[in-house]
């Protein structure tokens, strides 16, 4: 193909896939890169807010008998911190990374359902506003991130604080479920020719498994929070023992979601680790098949151990023993993967650049969190440790070490692809050492505090307890990590303009997202890549195999068969649309209204139906 003809076809493709600018373009975009970037930015902004709230709590606990936050303020702080971190940061940010990366890793031009993708983001934003706007108005949930009844029931929690928490969850779960159905369909049907399931990058496996876990786990929490709202508003008795209800039912339903959720956060992080370890070891991942099988077995086991969050409830002993065993077993596939990652590094030629540094930090920190997990999995020991700072230490080692460290590594790793420039290595290393060091200084003493008997969720403590010295150490650690986080953010902002130009493949990666320019054009790829093995960019071929023939003037995606990824048909893909936003607004109005009157569910459905009709009414285009 001549160069002139080629540039003509690229211009046509770019025109077909580009979107209007300005406010209208902002509201109607269906470009997965733009939507996911917003998702990621919003989650990171909330991470910063939640981090500040953590520092607020650490200031309060730094010395005995401080009075700067009273009990109510402290209750609100840990509730908002926990709920926001779990529902508005950890789960969404992983999905957001996936929404950005998946089409690029598949050599595709968009997600399977671009408008559903936009809807997912707007619903997520609704969830953010649902809890943070009332917080500004000083109506903040204050019963912890899981708000058990009877405390959260109609008898003990008047007002709307508990409703706000429950409905924030509904928003975020609708967002997460929409994203998961989209990810599932995209990975199953939009793989490039030749990318059989067994040739998928590890990150895609991780996201496919996570999407399925989300689909099976999240309905439980949507149901249970709806039951709670119904108890509070229309007089149902699900959790009212006086009328045949049962408060432990709430705990079962909540943790049936809550435990898989930990892995919904952690498995995508394993996907980041797989990608980064492979690139920086400069060899294909060691033990690809065992890694994938381990992730699948984690996904299955994760649904069988929720009761380990309830050992102190007083369930039958046999049940506790079963869940102890199940909780210990899940350490095996997790450990196996860690060994595979270490073996990849060991047998490769590792380059210790910032992304890999985060992964090394992950291995050390997560192993400590995993070991304390094995300790708390044991029912008798857990009875001693539950509701103490030991659990606070454990969960932060697992979630920050296990999920956020890989996320930070992934951010640095894919940043050049998104903006075309690299972040500073030197400042990247400074921020790594400050965050990882400050984190360990901040959270390790909490293990000891927990063993000394310091309970969770107390807003102050007397000096005679002897908890003072370790608490000030923990607070200093939090401050150091906070400085590191500020440097990380500053590095990302400054590098937007000052970073070294990246080129298409700055780290020498093997997967398809590195086969397009940085940042990618609106249409992502000029041709449809063809994949012949697991590391398509490391084949050494002088000319890359591609297919041609998708429309240049109409948005088209290539669908392939679910297992073998043989070309199947061409699907028209929708362009920019306002309907996802309107549908999200209508849904939000119903959700918000339904904490004040049950009739909102009835009348609120009409605008939703109207918006969905507008969405699906055929306009020449098709698909969701």
């Amino acid at each position: 193909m001549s160069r002139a003809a080629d540039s003509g076809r690229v211009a046509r493709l770019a025109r077909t896939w580009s979107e209007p600018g300005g406010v209208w373009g902002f509201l109607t975009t269906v470009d997965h890169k733009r939507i996911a970037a917003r998702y990621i930015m919003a989650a990171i902004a909330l991470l910063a807010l939640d981090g500040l709230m953590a520092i607020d709590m650490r200031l309060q606990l730094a010395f005995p008998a401080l009075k700067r936050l009273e009990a109510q303020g402290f209750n609100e702080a840990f509730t908002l911190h926990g709920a926001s971190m779990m529902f508005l940061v950890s789960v969404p940010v992983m999905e957001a990374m996936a929404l950005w990366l998946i089409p690029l890793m598949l050599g595709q031009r968009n997600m399977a359902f671009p408008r559903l993708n936009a809807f997912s983001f707007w619903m997520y934003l609704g969830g953010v506003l649902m809890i943070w706007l009332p917080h500004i108005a000083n109506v903040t949930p204050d019963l912890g991130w899981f708000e058990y009844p009877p405390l959260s029931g109609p008898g003990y929690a008047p007002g709307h604080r508990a409703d706000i928490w429950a409905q924030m969850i509904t928003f975020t779960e609708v967002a997460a479920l929409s994203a998961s159905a989209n990810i599932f369909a995209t990975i199953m049907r939009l793989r490039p020719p030749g990318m059989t399931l067994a040739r998928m990058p590890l990150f895609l496996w991780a996201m496919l498994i996570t999407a399925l876990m989300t689909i099976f786990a999240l309905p439980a929490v949507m149901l249970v929070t709806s039951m709670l709202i119904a108890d509070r508003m229309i007089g149902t008795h699900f959790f009212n023992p006086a009328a045949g209800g049962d408060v432990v039912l709430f705990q079962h339903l909540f943790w049936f979601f809550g435990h898989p959720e930990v892995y919904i956060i952690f498995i995508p992080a394993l996907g980041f680790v797989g990608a980064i370890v492979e690139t920086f070891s400069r060899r294909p991942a060691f033990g690809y098949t065992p890694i994938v099988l381990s992730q699948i077995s984690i996904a299955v086991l994760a649904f069988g151990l929720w009761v380990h969050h309830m050992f102190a409830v007083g369930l039958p002993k046999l049940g506790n023993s079963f869940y102890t065993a199940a909780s210990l077993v899940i350490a095996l596939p997790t450990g196996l993967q860690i060994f595979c990652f270490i073996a990849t590094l060991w047998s490769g030629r590792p380059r210790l650049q910032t992304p890999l540094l985060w992964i090394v930090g992950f291995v050390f920190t997560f192993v400590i969190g995993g070991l304390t997990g094995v300790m708390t999995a044991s029912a008798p020991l857990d009875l001693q440790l539950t509701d103490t700072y030991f659990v606070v230490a454990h969960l932060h080692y697992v979630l920050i070490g296990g999920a956020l460290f890989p996320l930070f590594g992934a951010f640095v790793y894919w940043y050049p692809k998104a903006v075309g420039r690299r972040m500073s290595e030197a400042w990247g290393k400074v921020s790594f050492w400050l965050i990882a060091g400050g984190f360990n200084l901040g959270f390790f003493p909490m293990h000891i505090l927990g063993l000394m008997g310091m309970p969770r969720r107390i807003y102050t403590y007397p000096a005679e307890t002897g908890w003072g010295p370790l608490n000030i150490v923990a607070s200093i650690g939090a401050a150091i990590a906070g400085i590191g986080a500020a440097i990380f953010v500053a590095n990302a902002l400054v590098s937007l303009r000052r970073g070294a130009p990246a080129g298409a493949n700055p780290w020498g990666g093997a997967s398809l997202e590195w086969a397009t320019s940085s940042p990618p054009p609106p249409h992502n790829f000029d041709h449809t890549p063809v994949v012949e093995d697991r590391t398509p960019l490391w084949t050494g071929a002088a000319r890359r195999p591609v297919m041609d023939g998708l429309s240049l003037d109409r948005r088209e995606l290539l669908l392939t068969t679910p297992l073998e990824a043989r070309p199947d048909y061409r699907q028209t893909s929708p362009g920019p649309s306002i309907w996802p936003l309107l549908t999200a607004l209508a849904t939000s109005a119903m959700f918000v209204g339904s904490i004040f009157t049950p009739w909102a569910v009835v009348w609120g459905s009409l605008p939703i139906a109207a918006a969905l009709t507008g969405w699906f009414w055929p306009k020449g285009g098709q698909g969701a």
Partner: protein
Amino acid sequence: MSDGTAVKIVGDLSDLPTSAIGPRSLVWWGTVGFMLIEGTGFLIAAGAYLYLRGQAAGWPPAGIRPPDLWAGIAFTALLLASEIPNRWLSAMAKARDTRAVRWGIVGMALMGLALLALRGLEFAHLNVRWDRDAYGSVLWMLIFLHATHVLTDLVDTVVLAACVLTREISDSQFSDVDDNAGYWSFVVVTWLPIYALVYWGPRLL
């Protein structure tokens, strides 16, 4: 490629069809995703029903009659019967038969309306209110959850009927009709265990 690397064209996609129907179509996979989500919701709600039943001394609790059998049977019988035109509609959509699809979808919309009316009757014969006790709450939850599915698919069907009656039916709309029929079958299939659980469970077990 857009990274400047030279490429070798190894295949041409322009001969591929531009739509597909049934499990080959992309929308089918999205629909399956949502069926898995909603099916899980039903399973968990049924689990909550059984859990509360396990905690109760009697089921239904003393003084409450189980839901009237005839109302449940009427709804279930019509729901099962609706599968016949529904499957026929699916076959006609696959055959791209415009006339049959137009008749079929109108018929299915009427079926949905009749079912909704029967469902209203069913609520009136549950013999308990949702705010009486936990039994009433969880019974209403299960039936309400299923009723929202009947209603949602009715609205889908009406909108789709409006589409196919007012314009030439495109290939992708035949596919939509087929996916909608698949979703209707899902609504039918999920009802059967709930029906057994709430109508026959208290009587037989």
